[in-house]
């Protein structure tokens, strides 16, 4: 989908979005998300390349890590705070889809489940099991 179409659809729902760069086949912008009135407000950066990829980062703060964990859940990189919002192998997102109706709601969900994750280190938002190995180890240990 042309970068322009994506961009104008986002701006319609998020008029306060801050455009960092916008070219014919790519753009970067920042929007603020608050999944619930009780949640913090997060600034996220969206980097889109036409017909290729979309990347999402949390940019305005260093995200805390739950007490019983070492790294963030469902990210490509804890350091860059790049969120992993869908399954690439299942092709849950394709560049023909609108970011505003897929990536952005998913990012809001990610932030909501991230705050719950801070409470007890468990991910309640579904997707692949981050702590599968840990559970297997526990089962093996319990059986010994």
């Amino acid at each position: 989908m042309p970068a322009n179409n994506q961009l104008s659809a986002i701006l319609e729902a998020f008029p306060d979005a801050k455009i960092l760069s916008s070219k014919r086949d790519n753009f970067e912008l920042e929007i603020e998300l608050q999944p619930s009135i009780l949640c913090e407000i997060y600034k996220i950066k969206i980097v889109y390349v036409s017909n290729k990829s979309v990347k999402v980062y949390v940019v305005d703060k260093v995200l805390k890590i739950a007490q019983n964990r070492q790294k963030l859940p469902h990210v490509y990189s804890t350091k860059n705070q790049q969120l992993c919002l869908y399954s690439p192998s299942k092709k849950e997102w394709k560049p023909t889809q609108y970011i505003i109706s897929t990536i952005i709601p998913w990012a809001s969900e990610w932030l909501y489940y991230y705050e719950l994750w801070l409470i007890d280190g468990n991910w309640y938002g579904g997707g692949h099991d981050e702590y599968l190995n840990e559970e297997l180890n526990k089962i093996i240990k319990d059986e010994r």
Partner: protein
Amino acid sequence: MEQIYKTEISEYLEELGKELDITQKEHEEIVKSYQAVGNWLSKDDSSLTPYNPKILPQGSFMLGTIVKPINPADDIDIDLVCKLEKKPNAWTQRDLKIRVGDQLKSNSTYDRMLWEHKDGENYDEGGRRCWTLKYADVAGYHMDILPSFSSEGLTYLMEKTFSGDSELNEHDLQALAIRITDTEKENYSTDNNIENWHKSNPFGYAQWFLQKALISKRRMFSLNESIDPVREYEKEKLPLQRVVQLLKRHRDIMFSSDEFDCENRPISVIITTLATLAYDRSENLIDAYSGIVARMRSYIEDRFNPETGQYEKWVANPINKVENFADKWIDVKQKEEYFYLWLDRLEEDLEKINYSKGRGLQYLNESLSKMYGKEVTTRVFVNSGKKKMDLREQGHLKMAGGIGILGEVGTKVQQHNFEGDFEK
């Protein structure tokens, strides 16, 4: 406070209230148990049958304000009235107490349950006012059975309907009173005139409470709805009932700390009475809670006692104005101090709740955990997370524009799977 924020925070408090409450299964179990006691006391060959004995719930079970103990190993207390309609003239308080006890003991199960409470310490004479059955192994509750007399008119009054708007009729209220036994009374084993026995009015109190708790003044109700021995489990509770649950739990958590002498913590009847007086029929839980906490202390009266020449703190029994629920504060100063400490803490804690907007769910979780206990609080947050996930899977979850609030308006959130863990 904005409406959206009030709604959101009220939902968390409502769910918290549900977690503190007994479950439907527990409720049904309890009802079944005390009905069985009632049947045993009134069966054909029971020595009490001529006096038409009935077992009726009272206290927090009747008011719908019960909270589970902090420690799951502790028993839930269920307060019951064993009400007889007539008595032989000669019976003293002790006769009534012992007769009820004997009838219970004639059943081998109840006999054992009387033994199992406090290792049989109260097996012979019962407690000060009650017989206590310990439902130990399976259930985790005990039942305090209060032997009493009441007039035959009581049943009629309970069926009579009231509305939230009607004035409580003093005459009716007094007719709801019962006479109870008390081993510490001088006339315990001598006086057969019930006019000289201690008077108690749990049903009048319940009627007062329910009338104040109704959101709509127009709704009609009869006391039977709440003391009916086969009463239904209430899934939805009135805001005042929820607030009382939250207040009692807050008290339980605060005074479980070693810095306090647990003996002198605020008692439930004072909490319930002040909360009821301070309630303004707000429908929204956070409004009801805030209003009650803000106004509660203003309902503690200072009354001059001409006998001592001193002012005393009073929390009058609303249906027996000469009874002071706070009478023990006069001798045990710490009880009064603790009550005010608790009110101070409630106000501080409410501030924290009211300033949790935009601070993160983890912040609210931490505040509520300190006030109501970590386990129940975390369960509320986990459940709300799971509920959102179910909504998305059913295609009902939406995201609003502007700032991306998840809820019932905006763009539908499509199905997807979070992945990740690509780091080595």
